[in-house]
């Protein structure tokens, strides 16, 4: 119930409403015409969501900043190719998702550093007893052990209370594949909760 309420609250507060989508299209048009303030406003509006996605994927604040910068600059260069200007935020998230996957799959990548306290905030003490709060912490930490593509499905779904369809679109996979990844991710998280000694395994 709490989760459902939180998700619907996120939907109301954070998902781009029709007016925002229209504003985004206008900002893209301004940026395409060479008005620097258009792209600046796109950055202001969406950088927090993109950074959050990168943080939850990489569990490394500095890498998450790099990916956020790279995603926006990449988007800026490719702005003339964007077809759905009203979805510019989702498009930049998709670019960031791919950058995160590239980094996670890179053999040169160093070990993940756990996020500092503010990014892995504790469960709301008003809604959770001590045992539940600890389990919530374990679930959030276990995310780092999921294989990249399953982790991405979870991150996209819970990023801003997306529906399955929106989240699948956000990361550029079809809904069926997305649901499969999310289902497997949840099964792995349950297995990790039941047996914390489980280590990460790449999916077949």
């Amino acid at each position, binding site marked *: 119930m709490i989760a459902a309420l939180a998700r619907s609250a996120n939907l109301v507060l954070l998902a781009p409403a029709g007016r925002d989508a229209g504003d985004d299209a206008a900002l893209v048009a301004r940026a395409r015409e060479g008005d620097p303030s258009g792209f600046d406003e796109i950055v202001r509006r969406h950088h927090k969501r993109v950074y959050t996605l990168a943080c939850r994927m990489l569990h490394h604040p500095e890498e998450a900043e790099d990916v956020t910068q790279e995603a926006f600059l990449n988007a800026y260069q490719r702005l003339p*190719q964007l077809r759905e200007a009203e979805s510019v935020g989702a498009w930049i998230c998709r670019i960031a998702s791919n950058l995160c996957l590239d980094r996670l799959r890179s053999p040169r990548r160093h070990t993940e550093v756990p996020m500092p306290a503010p990014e892995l905030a504790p469960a709301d003490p008003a809604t959770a007893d001590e045992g539940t709060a600890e389990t*919530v912490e374990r679930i959030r930490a276990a995310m780092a052990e999921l294989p990249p593509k399953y982790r991405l499905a979870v991150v996209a779904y819970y990023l801003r209370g997306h529906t399955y369809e929106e989240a699948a679109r956000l990361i550029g996979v079809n809904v069926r594949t997305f649901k499969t990844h999310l289902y497997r991710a949840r099964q792995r998280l349950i297995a990790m909760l039941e047996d914390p000694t489980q280590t990460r395994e790449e999916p077949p």
Partner: protein
Amino acid sequence: MRCPKVRAKLQALLDGALPATDEARLRDHLTACEPCRGHLDSLRLIDEALSTQPEAEPRPELAPAIMARARAQRGRRRPLVPVWLEGWTLASVALGLAACGLAVSRFLPAAGLPDELAAQASGLLPVALAAAFGLFGMWYYRP
């Protein structure tokens, strides 16, 4: 209903996405099966833990740094080609140019060029036009 089948549908139950008949059968099973109830509790906890995560707070310098880098890039690339001229449109234009080149080359002998030169040109002209356009496209959409 067996446990594996029930567990595959528990998330849909939490999402409120099950038909009423399925939901009733699932609830009957859950009343009698403790392990499946535990599985449902775990799914509920996962949902709660992940949907109540606060957004990460970037350093205040991040957004201005992105804007500054974008401004530095500005001017390096001018919109030489309209937005609609990209991807498949670009490929179609390249093919169209090749076809035009082929058509023009057929009139080269009539234009007074020696036969040998006209024969060479008829083969090369379409390819050269398409290649030039392709190279322009690659340059324009360089990473």
